């Protein structure tokens, strides 16, 4: 459910709405405070409020700045994961060509249908933080087929076949890992408690500025609007990059599509 909500939030239009709303509320809040307490009343405490705000504002700014960078790293890592997975998939495909038939052919079929299921079925599901059961089944069958291969017995070919066999096992293992990490990246965002901190922190950072008394109300309003704009925009960016497979801005399955194209054209294909 959380993923489904997330994919809705990550629309660009929703982002614009959130930013506009944040600015409106922030400015409205200041107007309200201005009505209730006169500027002169608030001005007396500017010094002390300033000391406290310096700590508060800077702490929040550091937190938000680091979050922006952290989710960007997560985004890049997720993109690298899809390339890894597609690479392992292609590696297994090429290796399978040298295997005795019909197992080799069967493995190539499974690899191809796995890539297809990922592109066509799993990608839309990942936007909602889910995975495709069919992709799991295909991977299980691929694993069973590879593990069921007869160990090489011909003494002359032993060394090489042994190496080929071990290599394909390593790739199978890496494929499974990349897949698991990809699904994890799709469904797991920042822990909710961190979102509470980020959101409340933003509200407090903007709200605290109401306590200052400025002679020029227009300048005060502008400052508050600017602060609300940059904070809400950063928060939206954190949310959008934190779910790299959902929303308008997301990673595309181009690595797998490329695999499928290579499988179609390759001379090593037995399909």
């Amino acid at each position, binding site marked *: 459910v959380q993923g489904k909500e997330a994919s809705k939030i990550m629309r660009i239009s929703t982002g614009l709405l959130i930013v506009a709303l944040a600015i409106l509320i922030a400015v409205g809040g200041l107007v309200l405070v201005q009505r209730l307490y006169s500027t002169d009343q608030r001005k007396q405490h500017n010094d002390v409020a*300033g000391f406290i705000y310096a700590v508060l*504002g800077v702490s929040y700014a550091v937190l*938000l700045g680091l979050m922006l*960078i952290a989710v960007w790293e997560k985004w890049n890592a997720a993109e690298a994961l899809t390339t890894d997975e597609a690479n392992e998939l292609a590696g297994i495909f090429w290796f399978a060509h040298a295997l005795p038939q019909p197992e080799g052919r069967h493995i190539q079929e499974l690899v191809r249908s796995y890539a297809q299921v990922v592109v066509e079925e799993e990608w839309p599901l990942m936007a909602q933080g889910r995975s495709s059961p069919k992709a799991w089944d295909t991977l299980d069958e691929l694993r069973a087929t590879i593990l069921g291969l007869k160990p090489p017995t011909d003494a002359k070919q032993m060394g090489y076949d042994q190496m080929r066999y071990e290599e394909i096992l390593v790739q199978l293992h890496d494929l499974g890992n990349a897949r698991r990490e990809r699904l994890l990246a799709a469904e797991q965002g920042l822990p909710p408690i961190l979102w509470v901190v980020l959101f409340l922190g933003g509200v407090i950072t903007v709200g605290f500025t109401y306590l*200052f008394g400025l002679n020029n109300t227009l300048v005060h309003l502008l400052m508050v609007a600017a602060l609300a704009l940059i904070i809400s925009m950063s928060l939206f960016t954190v949310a959008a990059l934190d779910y790299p497979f959902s929303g308008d801005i997301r990673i595309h399955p181009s690595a797998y599509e490329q695999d499928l194209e290579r499988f179609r054209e390759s001379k090593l294909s037995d399909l």
Partner: protein
Amino acid sequence: MLIREAPILLWGVVVILAAVAFALAGQALVARLVPMHIRVADNTALGTIYSALYVLNALALAFSLFFVGSSYREAETTTNTEAHTVADLYQLADQFPEPQRHRMQDLCRSYARVVAEEEWPLLGQGRASRGSPHAQALADELVQTVEDFEPTTSTQEQALTLVQSLDDHRELRLLQSHQGIPALLWIVLLVGGVMTISFTFFFGVEGSWLHRASITALTVLVVLILYTIYRVEYPFTGHIQVRPADFEAALHSMKGE
């Protein structure tokens, strides 16, 4: 994309001058609209609020520059490894019987040449960039030639590992060629930069040349960092880029034999 191809110094100067001009114009406008005595009275409170904004922006800018720089170094390493792998494969081909030896050596040479000459200009052109189809075809054929051969010695088996490593590093290079800063983060950086600079217009400074000088200094620094991030963002595009020198060196060593 257009600016990325343009001479780096010229555009840098143009961009910085334009930004400084805008900043000074903004300052002049605010100075006219908001009287000095009001601005001076608000300096302390404004400065405190400003701290939250500039810390957020400074962090985001500094880290973006840092990460763009480290991706650039990673791209260099990838290129270097890939080029060395091709050269190693060429050497290893000596251990193969004909016709594989000739076939592999031909493919290694053509691959290095096509990557350096044909593929390099295509790198990073658009997000879906897959490099040159010609280079991809040569790489695939190299993989196929090695995989198709039944090796009898352990040296020949090494070719299998090398060819996989070549494929991996090729994919990594293509990925790195279009991995830049996400568009949303760019918007945050740009809007944040504009805010950080325009906030300073509202300070009241007796002696307006001092105000103007500090605004100019801040603008130059912020724009310089943004411009550097922009130029280094895609490691295979524009004037600051990883050059195919490693592939040219590999090609040279392969021809030398």
